[in-house]
């Protein structure tokens, strides 16, 4: 535990210091990694802790992004209204979808989360007058805050995102180590045992589902500010599945593993897309390789390595 805290502190210092040495392009890539890291960690709360494999997690990311984008463009670019509205919509949507999804388990849960996610994708795609359809919402402005720096610049915006990233890591760490988080792990291991012990399993899963949606919404709001643009592709199954991949690649059930997985995927996409057009093909191969050779993720592999060298 001490090693973990020390490692976290080192990572935080590094993340704070990095803008001094990175180019503005590299910094924007790092910003994206942090945002997708929040997204992956939010899914890990469901998958890694509660054992619920959602294939529709993009829904909450996308709903928050669209909410903020629409409010900022059509109503007012007011951070204190738009930002909470984005979070609220994400949490509300997961509260609604959770009612359906949590009636099921296993493969049914995968399919239903997928199908529910596609409902939102269908609306974003079809309801052109509201969402712009396939073209999405362009030119979403960055928030204006009473700060000495403008968030339209890369460095202040990076720190703005880093602040929320640290906040999310802290909040998820507290949740994971709380009695609530322990109960989720218990449910993952044996739902029946927890029921016998008197836990209201459904309620625990439902709260976890909403919390995961809320943090995915945080990632979505930050993303639309970062990217200035949102389209239906941030609601669809490919994006949802990539979140699952990030979690598994990093290590499900570890707090920071999924953020690492997100950084690897975002980095690889950027690197490979620069050399060839076939990123999707490579991504498909990564899915297969990770499933076959790294089912417990990079964190799992590192632990094995440490254990075998330690003994």
């Amino acid at each position: 535990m001490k090693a973990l805290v020390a490692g976290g502190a080192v990572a935080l210092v590094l993340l704070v210091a990095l803008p001094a040495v990175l180019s503005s392009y590299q910094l924007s890539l790092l910003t994206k990694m942090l945002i997708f890291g929040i997204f992956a960690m939010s899914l890990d709360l469901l998958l890694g802790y509660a054992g619920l494999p959602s294939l529709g997690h993009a829904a909450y990311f996308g709903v928050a992004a669209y909410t903020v984008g629409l409010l900022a463009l059509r109503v007012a670019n007011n951070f204190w209204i738009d930002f909470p509205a984005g979070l609220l919509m994400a949490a509300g949507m997961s509260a609604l979808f959770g009612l359906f999804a949590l009636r099921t388990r296993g493969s049914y849960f995968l399919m239903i989360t997928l199908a529910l996610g596609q409902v939102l994708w269908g609306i974003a795609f079809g309801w052109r007058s509201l969402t712009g359809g396939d073209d999405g919402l362009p030119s979403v402005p960055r928030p204006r805050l009473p700060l000495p720096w403008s968030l339209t610049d890369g460095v202040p915006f990076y720190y703005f995102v880093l602040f929320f990233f640290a906040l999310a890591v802290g909040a998820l760490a507290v949740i994971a180590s709380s009695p609530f988080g322990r109960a989720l792990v218990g449910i993952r291991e044996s739902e029946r045992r927890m029921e016998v012990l008197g836990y209201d399993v459904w309620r625990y899963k439902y709260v976890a589902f909403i919390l995961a949606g809320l943090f995915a919404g945080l990632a979505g709001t930050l993303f639309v500010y970062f990217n200035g643009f949102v389209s239906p592709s941030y609601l669809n199954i490919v994006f949802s599945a990539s979140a699952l991949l990030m979690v598994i690649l990093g290590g499900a059930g570890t707090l920071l593993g999924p953020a690492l997985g997100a950084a690897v995927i975002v980095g690889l996409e950027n690197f490979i897309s620069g050399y060839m057009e076939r990123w999707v093909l490579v991504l498909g191969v990564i899915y297969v390789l990770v499933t076959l050779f790294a089912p417990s993720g990079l964190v799992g592999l590192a632990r094995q390595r440490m254990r075998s060298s330690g003994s």
Partner: protein
Amino acid sequence: MTFWVTQALNGISFGMLLFLLAAGLSLIYGLMRMLNLAHGSYYILGGYVGLAAVRVTGSFVLAAVAATATVTLVGIVMERFFLRRFPEQELPQALLTFGFLLIFADLSLWLWGGTPQTLPKPEIFERSIRIGAIVFPTYRLFVIAIGLVVGLGLWWLQEGTRLGAMIRAGVDDAEMARATGVNVGLLSTAVFAFGAFLAGLGGIIGGPFVGVYPGADFEILEMALVVVIIGGLGSLKGAFVGGLVVGLLDNFGKALFPELALFTVFAPMAVILALRPTGLFGAR
């Protein structure tokens, strides 16, 4: 009146196509508890290989043979060398098959380009039949006939043959079936291959009216999943009824409320789920 009859016919024929896809998905799940997200890829693979074969041979029948043979082989390879390693583990299965979905999608885009294409119809079904004011394209009737024949054949296979009894035993209790001497491993490969065959056949049958294009794999997969969710996983009857329901909902949805096209399919699914989480004919 003409509108309703024509749309109903279109909906039923699309429903029969969905039945071909959902039947495989459902059988595979029923026997192996395996969710194959690459099932939609078999559709576009069937369509594209069929298209290539039609260009070379000029024969729809030969194209159908080439396409279904290719897709069946792909299915066997996927089951034997990859999916078999993860029995009853839905998450690795989902990731693995999603990886294959992306691989096939990008390979198809690479090989066959991004323009939507349609397969030429077999010549005898180029014509239309006219009854009063209503015009029936014979190809649509042919698709409905294929769906009915496959449905009846599957029903007979499952209820009337020894193989069907073995499959039903495997669905109910794989361990027990194994103990009584059923080679569940071989049976699983056979059912998986057969599911892939049906999806490849779907690509050939759907090629002339739905077409093949980048993204068709995802659309077909989602539609087939909704069919299976509505009908119930593992149920043949569910795949048939679900296919008809979704085919009709989709067609009338697109015709009457084009802006909410997908919604007219997904909203009823949510309602059915809320009432019956295992679908209309699902066992559990």
